[in-house]
């Protein structure tokens, strides 16, 4: 169970431990160091990039026992939590105060805040609110040498370098979070959730670009294509039209005037792009059902095929129509089924290649198609990952986005935190990232 996360890479652990507090985390790290073993932090293991996959027989340090909400400051809108607190549990714990924790990954019922910090996790509502890094004020950490310290603070600025900013999203390669101070967000006074349906993916994608171009920045703007929409309908019956080629789930929030104006603007853009349906959820029940449909997408896929490979790339929003066409063409060329359900508003694609691993040779085709899709995204001015992280999955693709000097600079930062490379080794940066690493002369080989 601890040999992998929700991604495809599999490793093996030398030992697995479940610390109850920061002191035990530090002790576990020191034990690993004493035995010359690396260590890997792990939350719920919902990551999709193999970031928590144990490589080099490390000690796996699982933080799920550290799951207390320690303090909630309603006035300052700050909560201190342990890393094993589940994302949705945090929002539930502050709901009665009219507050919530804004980043909301689709796995929010299962994923931990510590894991969210590790990957700098996103979610549908990060379109307007920003991803995890914008919501983490301070992190108490155990560094790679076993020492404990605080990065960042409750004050708005910390003196010197933004170590907190470096740590968030470092995928466990700089240490382990033991306490996290997160910013809480006020619930909006009004929320309008819209469902728009289209006869083509092009029209839906053009609507996304058009909404942003019209100066509207919704709270969330999600897209689902026909295959995934039908699968979700079969699974949960969320009320999505089965005959649509693509649907958009658009949410705007705030005060009455702004909400009405944005709903109107979105209706106009959707209508101009020949939407076949534009509907505003009538009540909270309908709204919750629409979101349940969106967040059940990955569960619904099991009805199509037993396995799926989910990608995570970002393209400029103006390139969505063109890149989506390429995604479908690439899948077709490899004789694969692709389904698209993604954070369209910020251009964050999640193409799902569905397959049955029992089919001989299918994985090679899936992998080849996935890499071609990423290349198409990069060619359009995009990036390799928007919210899932690099992990081991995209590690060797990093040179497609970064030059040797770029990677060397990243390696320098990582090494400053972890000079001996004990924290989650073999992740994020490919071998050879450090300048001169490839030319290093092996010990004893005098030339």
């Amino acid at each position, binding site marked *: 169970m601890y040999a992998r996360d929700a991604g495809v890479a599999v490793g093996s652990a030398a030992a697995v431990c479940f610390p109850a507090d920061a002191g035990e985390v530090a002790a576990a790290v020191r034990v690993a160091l004493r035995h010359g073993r690396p260590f890997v932090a792990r939350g719920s293991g919902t990551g999709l990039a193999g970031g928590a996959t144990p490589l080099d027989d490390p000690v796996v340090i699982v933080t799920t026992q550290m799951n207390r909400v320690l303090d909630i400051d309603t006035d300052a809108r700050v909560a201190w939590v342990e890393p094993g607190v589940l994302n949705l549990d945090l929002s539930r714990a502050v709901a009665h105060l009219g507050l919530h924790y804004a980043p909301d990954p689709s796995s929010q019922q299962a994923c931990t805040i510590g894991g969210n910090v590790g990957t700098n996790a996103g979610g549908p509502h990060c379109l307007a609110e920003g991803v995890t890094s914008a919501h983490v004020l301070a992190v108490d950490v155990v560094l790679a040498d076993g020492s404990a310290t605080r990065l960042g603070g409750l004050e708005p600025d910390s003196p010197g370098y933004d170590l907190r900013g470096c740590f968030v999203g470092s995928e466990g390669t700089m240490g382990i979070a033991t306490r996290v101070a997160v910013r809480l967000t006020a619930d909006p*006074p009004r929320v309008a959730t819209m469902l728009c349906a289209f006869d083509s993916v092009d029209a839906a994608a053009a609507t996304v670009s058009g909404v942003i171009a019209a100066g509207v920045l919704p709270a969330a703007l999600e897209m689902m294509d026909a295959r995934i929409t039908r699968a979700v309908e079969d699974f949960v019956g969320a009320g999505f039209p089965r005959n649509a080629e693509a649907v958009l789930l658009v949410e705007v929030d705030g005060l009455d005037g702004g909400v009405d104006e944005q709903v109107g603007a979105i209706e106009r853009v959707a209508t101009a792009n020949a939407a076949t349906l534009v509907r505003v959820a009538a009540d909270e029940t309908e709204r919750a059902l629409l979101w349940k449909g969106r967040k059940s997408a990955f569960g619904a896929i099991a009805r199509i095929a037993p396995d799926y490979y989910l990608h995570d790339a970002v393209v400029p929003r103006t390139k969505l129509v063109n890149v989506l066409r390429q995604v479908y063409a690439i899948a077709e060329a490899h004789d694969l089924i692709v389904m698209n359900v993604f954070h369209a508003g910020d251009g964050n694609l999640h193409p799902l290649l569905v397959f049955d691993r029992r089919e001989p040779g299918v994985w090679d085709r899936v992998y080849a198609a996935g890499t071609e899709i990423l290349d198409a995204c990069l060619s359009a001015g995009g990036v390799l990952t928007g919210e899932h992280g690099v992990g081991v999955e995209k590690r060797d693709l*990093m040179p497609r986005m970064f030059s040797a000097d770029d990677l060397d600079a990243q390696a320098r930062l990582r090494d400053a935190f972890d000079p001996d490379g004990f924290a989650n080794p073999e992740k994020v940066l490919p071998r050879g990232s450090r300048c001169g690493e490839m030319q290093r002369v092996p010990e004893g080989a005098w030339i």
Partner: protein
Amino acid sequence: MDLTGLDAEVLAPVGARTQWEVGGPPPAGAREVHAPAGVLAYEPADMTITVGAGTSYDELDRVLAEQGQECALDPRDRRATVGGILACGLSGTRRLRHGPVRDHVLEVRFETGDGQRVKGGGPTVKNVTGYDLPRLFVGSLGTLGILQQATLRCRPRLPYARWFAAEDTTSVYRPSTRLWAGAEEHVLIEGVRTDVDAQGARFAAHGHMPALPVGEHRGRISVAPGVVRDCAHALGSDVRWCAELGVGTIHVAADAGAALSDARAVAHAHGGWLLREAGGEPEDDGFGRELPNIDLMRRIKTAFDPAGRLNPGRLPLDAVVAS
């Protein structure tokens, strides 16, 4: 900008000198280098803009305004350059709603102390590919690299903005800023006109942007938002101040350097710190306390600038002067 041929020299990146005294003193005898100015790419429908680091905020804002957008970096002096704003990392007064400087930066391109040309981050509005060099760069005071260009996130410019004043404005939904200089709170509300007026209807309409304190000796206190009022009340009568409620920044100014040192002591007593922005006592290193995690910060500095050529002394990574 090409730094080759400048190998042996100490370098100091220069923008518009509007924040020239922020932090430690500028290195003496340094060779000054200037980044190119100008818009390199702007796609309004993507809400991203790429500019040379030497571009002034005034120019950036003018270009974005033509498309109904903005990037709320809000420097006190609009002549400040994007490079200077990022290097100093001082957020503007609308941070409460629009976020700190570091959250506006998507990609940076800079040259390290040992001459590597590095790109960090990425051009899209969402990106977690690799380590977060843009955030590392913001606030690094030019000690890790010389910034050449940056890609910034823009937002639609909100159509209407109005100041209100009241004893207590905590109930406002998403205020852009709440400023307090000891009497009434002044709150800026931005949005659709009907919403702004409806929210402000219960407040006095005479609100205005209070002048931020000016003086030869100037700085900003950073404390947890929960203690900002206590901290401000504890400041001496020779310190002029204006606090950003909900954020924890207190802008302070005084006519004597000693008063700034006293304000720093008050900040420390409230669990915060004071960054010198101008003036101060001659021995003021800009920070007045040892940087937290200084060993780690030293390793980062050495990693990007092994010979210590970039803005030595701007961050007190070596000796610390007691305040």
